[in-house]
C-alpha cells in the first residue's frame, strides 16, 4: 500500500501576485489576532478587572471558527492549485486538532490540580498529590486488573466469531436471514442491552434465566458473586460485539482465493486439516486486524457496567472508564478523575503500541 507517493500528479503554472499573497496572509493573521484579542479581553473580564466582556466564551469560539475558515481560504489564495490540494485534508485536521489536542493539554493541566466541582475555590495546583493518591487507590488498580480480564475475554469472543463466520461461509440456505439475525445484537445500544439482559432477563426473582436455573435445582445469583458478575458483564459485552468480529472475519473468508482451497481438497485434506493448514494461516492478517480493533473497543467498555452493576459487587466488575465516571458523578472530583484518565491513556498508548509492534514482527515471520 503506497500512501506516500504523489499518485495524482498535477503540474500547474500558478501566477500568484504579491498582493494576493499579502491578502491571504493578512486574512490569517488578522483573524488570529482578533481571536487572541477577544480571548484576552474575556480573561481580563472574567478576572474582574474589566467591565466589558461576554457572558460566556462562545464569541471566542466563533472567532476561532472565523480564523479556521480564513486559514482554509488562505491556502487557496496564497498557494493556488497546491492549496486546493491541502484543502482536502486541512478541515479534518483542524477539526481533530482543535477538539483533541487543546482539550488534552487542558486535561494535563487539571489533572495536577485538586479541582472538585463542589468546591468554590476552583482549580488549585497540588503537584504530585493526585499521583500519590492514585498509587494508594486500591480501587483504581482493581479496575485496571479487571481491564486485563476483560481484554483477555476477547480471545474467547474471537473463537466464537471465527466459528460463526465459518458457518456463515459454508454452503447453507437462508444465509441472508442468518446474517441479519447475527448482526442484530450489534445494532442495539449497550444501555438497552443492559436493561434487556442485565436487569430483566438476569433478574433473580422473575427473570427467565433465573427461572431455568431454579428449575434445574440451582440457586441463581448473577451479580452477587464477584466472579460470576464479571463473567456476566463479559458475556453481555461479547453478545453485542461478536457480530463485529464475525463480519470482519466473514469478509476475510469470502476473499480467500478459491483455487487454494480447491487444491487442498483435491489433495485430500480433511476439513480440519484444510482449516489448520490453509484457512487459518491465510486469515491471520484479517484476524489480527479484527482482534486489535476489538481490543481497542474493549478498552472503552463502560456503558453496560455503569448501568447494570455500577462497578459492584465491591468493584469486581469495574472498568477504568466506569470507575472514573463514578468518581466524577458521585464525588465531582474533576482533578483526580482526570489524572486517572490521563494515566489510563498513557497505559493504553503503551499497550497498543507494543501490541502493534509485536503483531507486525510476528506477521513478518509467519509460523
Amino acid at each position, binding site marked *: 500500500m503506497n*500512501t506516500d507517493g504523489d*499518485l*495524482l500528479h498535477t503540474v500547474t503554472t500558478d501566477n500568484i501576485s504579491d498582493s494576493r499573497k499579502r491578502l491571504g496572509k493578512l486574512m490569517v493573521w488578522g483573524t488570529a489576532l482578533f481571536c487572541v484579542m477577544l480571548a484576552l479581553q474575556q480573561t481580563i473580564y472574567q478576572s474582574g478587572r474589566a467591565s466589558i466582556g461576554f457572558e460566556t466564551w462562545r464569541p*471566542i469560539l466563533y472567532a476561532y471558527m472565523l480564523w479556521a475558515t480564513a486559514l482554509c481560504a488562505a491556502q487557496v489564495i496564497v498557494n493556488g492549485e497546491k492549496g*486546493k490540494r491541502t484543502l482536502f485534508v486541512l478541515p479534518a485536521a483542524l477539526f481533530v486538532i482543535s477538539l483533541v489536542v487543546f482539550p488534552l493539554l487542558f486535561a494535563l493541566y487539571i489533572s495536577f490540580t485538586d479541582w472538585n466541582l463542589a468546591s468554590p475555590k476552583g482549580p488549585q495546583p497540588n503537584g504530585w498529590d493526585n499521583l500519590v493518591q492514585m498509587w494508594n487507590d486500591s480501587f483504581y488498580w482493581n479496575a485496571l486488573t479487571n481491564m486485563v480480564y476483560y481484554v483477555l475475554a476477547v480471545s474467547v469472543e474471537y473463537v466464537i466469531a471465527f466459528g460463526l463466520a465459518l458457518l456463515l461461509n459454508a454452503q447453507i440456505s437462508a444465509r441472508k436471514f*442468518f446474517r441479519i439475525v*447475527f448482526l442484530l445484537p450489534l445494532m442495539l*445500544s449497550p444501555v438497552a442491552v443492559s436493561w434487556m439482559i442485565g436487569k430483566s432477563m438476569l433478574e433473580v426473582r422473575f427473570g427467565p434465566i433465573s427461572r431455568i436455573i431454579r428449575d434445574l435445582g440451582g440457586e441463581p445469583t448473577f451479580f452477587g458473586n464477584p466472579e460470576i458478575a464479571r463473567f456476566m458483564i463479559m458475556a453481555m459485552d461479547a453478545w453485542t460485539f461478536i457480530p463485529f468480529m464475525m463480519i470482519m472475519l466473514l469478509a476475510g473468508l469470502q476473499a480467500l482465493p478459491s483455487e487454494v482451497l480447491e487444491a487442498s481438497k483435491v489433495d485430500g485434506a480433511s476439513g480440519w486439516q484444510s482449516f489448520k493448514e490453509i484457512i487459518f494461516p491465510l486469515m491471520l492478517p484479517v484476524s489480527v486486524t479484527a482482534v486489535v480493533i476489538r481490543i481497542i473497543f474493549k478498552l472503552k467498555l463502560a456503558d453496560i457496567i455503569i448501568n447494570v452493576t455500577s462497578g459492584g459487587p465491591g468493584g469486581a466488575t469495574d472498568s477504568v472508564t466506569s470507575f472514573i465516571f463514578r468518581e466524577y458523578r458521585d464525588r465531582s472530583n474533576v482533578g483526580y478523575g482526570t489524572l486517572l484518565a490521563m494515566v489510563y491513556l498513557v497505559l493504553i498508548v503503551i499497550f497498543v503500541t507494543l501490541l502493534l509492534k509485536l503483531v507486525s514482527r510476528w506477521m513478518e515471520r509467519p509460523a
Partner: protein
Amino acid sequence: MNAIFKDHEVSLRVQTKWWTNRIAIYATLLIWAAICLFPIFWTITTSFKLAPDVMKGNLIPWWDFTPRWKGWESIGLSPRLIGEVSTVREEFFKRFWNSTVVSISASLLAVILGSLAAYGLSRFSYRFGFMKNSDISFFFLSQMILPPVVLALPFLVLYKSLGLLDSRIGLILLYTLMVLPIVIWIMRDQFQGIPIELEEAALVDGLGIWGAFLQIVMPIALPGMVAAFILSLVLCWNEYFFAALLTSTNATTLPVMVASQTGSQGINWWSMAALSSAAILPLVIVAIVLEKYIIKGMAAGAVK
C-alpha cells in the same frame, strides 16, 4: 453411475457423514440465532405484559398470556392514548428527536470531513512540518484508541465556559470526533480501490481536482460513503457516555432516557420494556433494510 453405487457401504457412510454435518451446522446456526433473537423477543413481548404475567414468567403471547397495551401506555404510545395529549409521549419524542438530529448531523459531518481527508491522503503527497502522508493517516487513525473518558472531563469544563453544555451542537461535535477515524479508515480503503486513471482522464478533459473529485470520484464512492454513514449512525445513536455527562435536560438522547428510568422502575418491567423496544426498533429496522451497507462498511479495511 450414481444410482448404481448409492447403496454401497462406502457411499452410505459418506452420506450419513454429510447428513450429520448438515444437521450440526444448522443446529449451531439455529442455536446462535436463538441467542441473538431471544433478548429482543423477550423485550418486545414483555412490553405487552401485566404484572402477573411478569411474575409467573409467561413467555408466549396469546398462548400463555394475553397481550395488553399497558407498557406502551406508560410512554403514551398505545392505540387508546395516541389521539390524546400525553406529556410522557412528548418527552419520549423530544429525546427521540434529539437522538435523530445528533446522530444524523454528526454522521453527515464526519462523512464529509472524513471523505475529503481520506481522498486527499490517498491521492496527493502532503508535508505538514515533519508529517508526511503516512504520519497524517496515523494521526487520524490513532484517535480511535483515545478513550472517551480522557476527553470527557475537559470537555465538560470547556463546554461549560462556552455555554455548550446540554446542547445538541456540543454532542454533534464530540460524536463527529468519535466516528471520524472510522470513517477515514473505511473511505481510504474505498478511494484506494478507484483507479487513478479516471481522474487523470477528467483532468485532461479540463476539470480541476475538486471538479474531478465531486463529479467523477464521488458518485463511484457513494456506496462506501453510505456504508460509513450508516456505521457512524449506529455508533452515534447508541452512544451513552458523553451524553450522560454532557447533557441534563434539553439535549438528552434516548440512551440517557432509558438509563435514567432503569433504576426507578422496579418491577414495572412493561414500561421499561416498551421504552427499550422503542429505543432499539429504529436500528433493528435499519439493520434489516440496510444490512448490505453495514456489512460493507465493516468489511472495508478488514481485507486489504
